[in-house]
């Protein structure tokens, strides 16, 4: 009993001193809570459907940020991983009868293989060369999909996959909690030693190599990790929509993930995730004017970037929080003294 009380007290203390002091952390906590509690308040299937798709694309965007944001390997063909994950899961489910719980991770492993296959030729390229070359891979795969319709379903794709579970709410909980877990894992990876090496490769690859780190291995690791998470997103998408079609490999899919991530602010993981949760429902909202939908979307993006070229979320964060000039710890913008070292905040 005492132990439980002690742990509870410790938890509340932690919340009070670490979470409630910073608005960005409060927002993240509220975000988690709202997502997990929402089905208790509403069971509107349309709303749940949008949130499920948003969660799937949030994993996808975060995985792009891990590879292209943190490691700096600009990938314009990220749809490849999504498509391989989706098609892998679909083929395993349809022809071998593997249930979703097995087919999604196996599909993601196929995406890891795809990451290795495109990672190896791309290791020698950098910057713009890399970005333009990676654009080619999903298109090559799409050509193959069309060329072998007996195996891949051609233009129509593979349809009639198993549902993950029957009810909409259960689907919602499975996918949203997978999203929350995976995004946290990605964020933890970027925070670990490996993540620091990724970040260093982005800043200056030559210096990292000079420090005795095998950058080739780490870049391949980044490709594989990113491929794995994007593949899971693809598998979830295929099983939720119950179809894996060539639209998962389209150029617009690759561009979409770049738009989401840059809009939300790269090199942060929470930026792309937040951006998907803003932009995807926004695109649904624009369905009120169906012809103008994509145009409005494009204009919103151009205008916001014009004023916040760093991305929307980092811009907002810099408005509500300041960094202490002495100890580099973040504080609410309203404080006059740092909450840790008590230094004057300008």
């Amino acid at each position, binding site marked *: 009993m005492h132990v439980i009380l002690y742990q509870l007290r410790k938890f509340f203390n932690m919340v009070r001193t670490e979470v409630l002091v910073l608005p960005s952390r409060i927002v993240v906590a509220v975000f988690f809570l709202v997502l997990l509690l929402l089905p208790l308040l509403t069971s509107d299937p349309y709303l749940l459907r949008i949130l499920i798709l948003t969660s799937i694309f949030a994993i996808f965007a975060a995985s792009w940020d891990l590879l292209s944001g943190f490691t700096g390997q600009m990938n314009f063909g990220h749809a490849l991983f999504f498509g391989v994950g989706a098609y892998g899961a679909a083929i395993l489910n349809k022809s071998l009868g593997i249930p979703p719980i097995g087919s999604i991770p196996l599909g993601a492993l196929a995406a890891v293989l795809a990451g290795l296959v495109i990672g190896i*030729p791309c290791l*020698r*390229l*950098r910057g*713009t*060369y890399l*970005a*333009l*070359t990676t*654009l*080619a*891979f999903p*298109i*090559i*795969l*799409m*050509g*193959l999909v*069309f*060329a072998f319709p007996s195996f891949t379903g051609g233009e129509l794709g593979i349809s009639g996959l198993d549902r993950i579970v029957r009810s909409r709410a259960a689907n919602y909980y499975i996918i949203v909690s997978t999203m929350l877990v995976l995004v946290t894992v990605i964020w933890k990876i970027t925070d670990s030693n490996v993540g620091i090496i990724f970040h260093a490769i982005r800043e*200056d*690859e*030559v210096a990292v190599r000079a420090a005795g780190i095998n950058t080739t291995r780490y870049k391949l690791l980044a490709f594989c990790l990113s491929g794995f998470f994007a593949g899971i997103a693809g598998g979830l998408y295929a099983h939720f929509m119950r179809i894996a079609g060539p639209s998962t490999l389209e*150029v617009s899919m690759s*561009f979409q993930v*770049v*738009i989401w991530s*840059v*809009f939300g602010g*790269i090199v942060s993981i929470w930026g792309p995730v937040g951006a998907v949760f803003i932009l995807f429902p926004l695109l649904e909202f624009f369905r009120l004017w169906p*012809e*103008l939908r*994509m*145009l409005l*979307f*494009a*204009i919103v*993006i*151009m205008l916001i*970037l*014009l004023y916040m*070229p*760093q*991305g929307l979320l980092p811009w907002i964060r810099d408005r509500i929080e300041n960094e202490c000039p002495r100890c580099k710890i973040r504080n609410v913008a309203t404080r006059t003294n740092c909450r840790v070292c008590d230094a004057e905040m300008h």
Partner: protein
Amino acid sequence: MIADIIINSLINGSTYAMLAIGFSLIFGVARIVNIAHTAFYMVAAYCIYVGSYKLGLHPAVGMLGGVVVATLLGLITYKIFIDPIREHEAAVLIGTIALAMALQEVMLIVFTGDYLSVPSLVSGYFTMLGVKIFYQHLVTFITVLLILVVLRAFLTKTRLGLAIRCTAQDREVANLMGMNESQVALITVGISLALAGFTGAAIAPLTTVSPFMWLHPLIMMMAVVVLGGLGSIKGSFVAAYLLGFAEALVVFLVPMGAFLKGSVALSIMILVLLIRPEGLFGVAFEEER
């Protein structure tokens, strides 16, 4: 068959060469990866359609109008949307993607998604070695070659061309030597968008015009630029005809070729890059830090 392959590859190759040279000019001088490049090519193609069908002008006038409209539109959007955020590479990138999407949607709203056709500049054909060759093909091909020769002369012989090449090599030093870097960038954007517009105008009579016509050339253009080596005009030229030829060959000789043409051309690009990471004629740059 063989004649078809040759004609097709020459026409496609010319398109890709013009687009790729414009794209690598912008990239070299202004360091902008301009995804919207082929969107302006689409705009010019629509201008001819409007000029010749809606306004009843001669196609040549429409062609000229298309080039002017595409260039002006490009310069205005560059000034408003791209120039203020040029320091932020990622933002510029999705700025141009969003721009391309916006242009596509505008065309979709104004002209709907129908496939439209455009009258050819000159009608008729002649027979050579038993093969029908349309005058339009000939005109397109010759004008493309002419433009490329003029462009090369401009870049190597004039002072402005020299300034453009200098800025592409090293922006800061060019600036220190008294070249107005932002003005050079503006002029380059104008030139390369005029090239894109001209390509659209020249190719429109040979294909159908639709709001999605920019996607395939965009991918091929990027493949050409990478294969030839970024910033190398000669490289873009050779690579464009190489990929154009590969595409035509696949379309005519392989079953299901129309689906595989992009795949094969792009696979060639990747195979070459495995051997020469800097492209066919590219120079391995010292890494910018």
